[in-house]
Each structure stands twice: as structure tokens, then as C-alpha cells.
């Protein structure tokens, strides 16, 4: 993967842009979950599934960008779609922005998933579900999405079902397998030879263990607090097995070396 990864990086080179993007569509998908489409041709043109953008707030007291994964790319329309949960003041402010307003974004950022032509399991947990949708659409092979929700409020489920097989877990057991995504995989006999995943750290930890057990590759998308978003400030590191290319100290940068890592590469 590292060869391909560095190739992706090469391709990305000279491709990041900071633009003012118009909010084309902004709706609520579910309680506290928002769906925003942005007009950003230059970024949409370059974007890959699994990459993210930095979203800047209009509130001038909040200077740092919010990293948000790309949930959908429409290269023809020149739009990007993001789906986010309001967790703090920044995302709450974002949720107040109206269609027609402009928002500053930087992207596309990070490496994105490296698509392999192998029977795929796409796993999303909670707000880690949206980043899997574009990959689900793009993968041209046998694929099953395993989506872990809290309860039966299953945002985006329909859209996954429109492009492939979907297996569900809910924490409260109100739909699909009661439990987590690994429970669902086991209970519903999902099989594949590669995993692509995004979700909370405990879930990723479970997936890493599961992939090791099954002896298959798992590409997992990680999160960390960021400042620059482009690999310069060293804020967003995670522990890696190998020495990293930047500082040679086993610290990979989530924003640049990731957010997608081979599960074997990183400590969780």
C-alpha cells in the first residue's frame, strides 16, 4: 500500500485549494446530523473517496478549521457533500448556515482510501458512516456495507442500499444485529477480503483485531485534533508501527499520511 499511497500523494500534489464555497443544499438528516452540499468545482475535481476538507467558520473568534470527511463527490456538478454531527460550538454554528451563504473550505486533504479490486467490506460506525458512502458508490466489485447505528434512526441507509448490499447493527437492537459492527459481520456472515472502515476508535480497534484474525487488509480512517490540515504543524499525529517519513519517530500525521491507514501500520 505504501507505494500506492505515495502515488496518491504525488497525484494530490498541487491540487489542494482554499476556496469560498457556496452552500447549495443544507438539510437535517436526523437529530443533530446535517447534510451539506457545497459548490467547489476545483476541489470536487480532485477529490477522492476517504479524503476530507477543512471547514472554516465565519465566527472570527474560532480560527481553526473543522476537518470533515467528504461524503459525496459530484465532479460534473462541481459539488461536494459533507454530513456532520453537531458536537460543539463550531459544528453548531455550521448547522445555522443557510443555503446561499458562503463558507471557506480547504481541500481535498489527506490520502483517501486505496481502492482494491477485492471483495470488500465497508464499515461505518455512527458519524463514521458518511465517509464510506462515496467509496461504496465508486467501488466496482463485490461489496457489502456494514453500518453501525445507535438506534433505528438510520441516516443514509437508503443511499447505501441503492448501490450495494447493506448489513446493519444497532446498539439498542432495534434493527439488524444488536451490538456493534463486528457482531453484525459475524452474525450475518459478511465475508470479504478487504475492509475499509471509519468510526470511533474502539470500533477501529475491534476491526484491526478482526482483520488480523482473518488475515485480511483493513484500511481505517482515523481522527485527531488538527491545526494546519496539510502536514506542516505536527498537531495530528498517531502512533505508527514504522518510523514515519516526516520525523522518523513513529508518529504519522493523520491529516497528510492519513486519515486512512493500513490498520497494521498504526497503534490504536
Amino acid at each position: 500500500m505504501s507505494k500506492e499511497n505515495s502515488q496518491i500523494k504525488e497525484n494530490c500534489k498541487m491540487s489542494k485549494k482554499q476556496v469560498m464555497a457556496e452552500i447549495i443544499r443544507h438539510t437535517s438528516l436526523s437529530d443533530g446530523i446535517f447534510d451539506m452540499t457545497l459548490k467547489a468545482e476545483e476541489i470536487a475535481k480532485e477529490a477522492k473517496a476517504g479524503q476530507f476538507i477543512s471547514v472554516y467558520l465565519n465566527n472570527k473568534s474560532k480560527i481553526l478549521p473543522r476537518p470533515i470527511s467528504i461524503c459525496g463527490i459530484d465532479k460534473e456538478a462541481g459539488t461536494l457533500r459533507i454530513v456532520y454531527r453537531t458536537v460543539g460550538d463550531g459544528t453548531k454554528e455550521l448547522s445555522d448556515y443557510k443555503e446561499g451563504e458562503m463558507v471557506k473550505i480547504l481541500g481535498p486533504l489527506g490520502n483517501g482510501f486505496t481502492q482494491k479490486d477485492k471483495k470488500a467490506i465497508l464499515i461505518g460506525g455512527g458519524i463514521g458512516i458518511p465517509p464510506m458512502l462515496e467509496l461504496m458508490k465508486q467501488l466496482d466489485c463485490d461489496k457489502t456495507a456494514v453500518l453501525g447505528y445507535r438506534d433505528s434512526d438510520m441516516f443514509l441507509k437508503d443511499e447505501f442500499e441503492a448501490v450495494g448490499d447493506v448489513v446493519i447493527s444497532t446498539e439498542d437492537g432495534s434493527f439488524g444485529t444488536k451490538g456493534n459492527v463486528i457482531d453484525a459481520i459475524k452474525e450475518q456472515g459478511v465475508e470479504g477480503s478487504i475492509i475499509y472502515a471509519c468510526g470511533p476508535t474502539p470500533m477501529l480497534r475491534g476491526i484491526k483485531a478482526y482483520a488480523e484474525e482473518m488475515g485480511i487488509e483493513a484500511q481505517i480512517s482515523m481522527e485527531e485534533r488538527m491545526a494546519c490540515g496539510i502536514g506542516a504543524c505536527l498537531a495530528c499525529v498517531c502512533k505508527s508501527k514504522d518510523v514515519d517519513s516526516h520525523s522518523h519517530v513513529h508518529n504519522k500525521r493523520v491529516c497528510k499520511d492519513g486519515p486512512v491507514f493500513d490498520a497494521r501500520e498504526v497503534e490504536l
Partner: protein
Amino acid sequence: MNLSVDIAGVTMKNPVTTGSGTFGSGEEFSEFVDLSKLGAVTTKGVANVPWPGNSVPRVAEVYGGMLNAIGLQNPGIDVFVERDIPYLKKAGATIIVNVCGKSEKDYLEVVERLADQPVDLLEINVSCPNVKEGGIAFGQDPKALYDITKAVKAKAKQPIIMKLSPNVTDITEMAKAAVDAGSDALSLINTLTGMKIDIERRDFVLANKTGGMSGPAIKPVAVRMVYQVANAVDVPIIGMGGISTAEDALEFIMAGATAVSVGTANFINPATTLEVVDGIKTYMERHQINDINELIGCVK
């Protein structure tokens, strides 16, 4: 119109450089900024050996600024000399290398290693609040600052710029100690030590508890210190702290800075540095000022 300034015999083609640690060694910003058009690139602090830095979270947002406790993660001088200097050289950048260490020996190792390198200036960071040993200890005591400056100056082949901490009672006393010991120029300010608590988790936001505050919020403190130092010593000053526009930069220049660094603002807009250069030009045109040097310290 002349935009070039002189820092200890080194010509910067314009007065704008980058705040150490906010610009890497330039590569990540090269898609946004032509590095050869900057006054200089100031690199992230480099030590004698690789440093892993602090645990995450390393950054937190605060009102009008941010806290960081990166803890000076860096690849060490060997990788830096092999990879970063050639990269910057090829990009046509004027190079200021920021040097960090935990002991005098650490600093001297780096400085000696850079002796035969095509580096223009050395910025000596004795003011990082985020590492336990060394660093800031040198930057908060005039005697210790004098000694480290003297030692570094004796070994350095390039002019040296001591970088001062704002977390002191009297910045002019520190500036004088550094200049008396031979510092050819001064950089200020490094970050103000701050803290943020997450009241929901009832815990510090940063793994390191405290972090260095930077960004627009600290500008008034920085301008004040630059003014004080410019009126206390006779060496050129690289002013920084919250600069995100040409207007900000001009405030520092008028207060007495010969050059300025753009730090945290690079995270808000990666093209800030060159926009600041352009804005300074526009100001000078509008006010019919032919030489930027006329503005340095013009407010008394």
C-alpha cells in the same frame, strides 16, 4: 519601491518570513506559496536527534487563537540536513533554521552541524513552553540566556537570532542579555503559556496540560514587546505574534521590527505570507513610501 531589509548582513527580499513550527520546512506550503518569494522561510525547530514530541491532543482552539503543545517533534539534524535544506535551497528560499535543544550541548551540536550548510541565519529557540527540560528555562532567566547565547555565538558560522519568550516580567532585560552576549538579531514573541479545561470531561484539553498560545489574540502583547525591545537594544528584530494581515505586519514594523513572521495565520489561510507581502506593497504605494526601511520603528 524597496521592500528588502537587512537582518545581520543577510538580505531578505521582503520583510516577511514564517513563524517556526507553523510552516514545516516549507514543502507542505509550496502548493500555496512560491517559497522563493518570501523574505525567508523559518523552519520548524530542529534538535540534534529526532524528538517524538508530546502526546495528543496537541492543539486546542481558544478565543481568537490556539494553544499548541507539539513538544518540538522533529526529525533531528541529520535528516534535516539531508532532506530539508536541499529542498529549501532548490526552492530558492532564504533559509532561517530554528534550533532547539534540551541542554547547551544539544544546541551546540546542531549549530556546529549547520556550519557548512547553505543556511542564512540561525534562530535559537530558548522559549518553547512545551518541553519539560531546557528550552524555556534558558528563555526566562537573563543569566542563563546570556550564557547560552554566548556559547552558541562562539560556535555559529551564521548570524544568530535569539528567540525570546513573552512569559517574562521584563522583556527588555532578556533582550539586553541576549544582545550583550552577541546575538546578532532577536525574534519575538514565542507563545504565551496558556491552559484550557474541558468542563464536560473535567480535564485539561491538552495532554500536556498547558500549551503555547498564538494567533490574533496575542498580537497586542507582541507589539508592545517589540516596541519595548526596539527601544532598548540596537539589533534588528523579527516581530511576530498574531500577524495575519499586512496591517498587522505594519504595526510590528512601525513598532520597530525589521522583519515579521506569519505563524498561526498560515493555518487559517495557507497563502497568508504572500498576501501580507502584497498588502505591504499596496500600503506603501498608497502612502508613497519608497523604502520599507522608512517605516521601521517610525512610531515613537
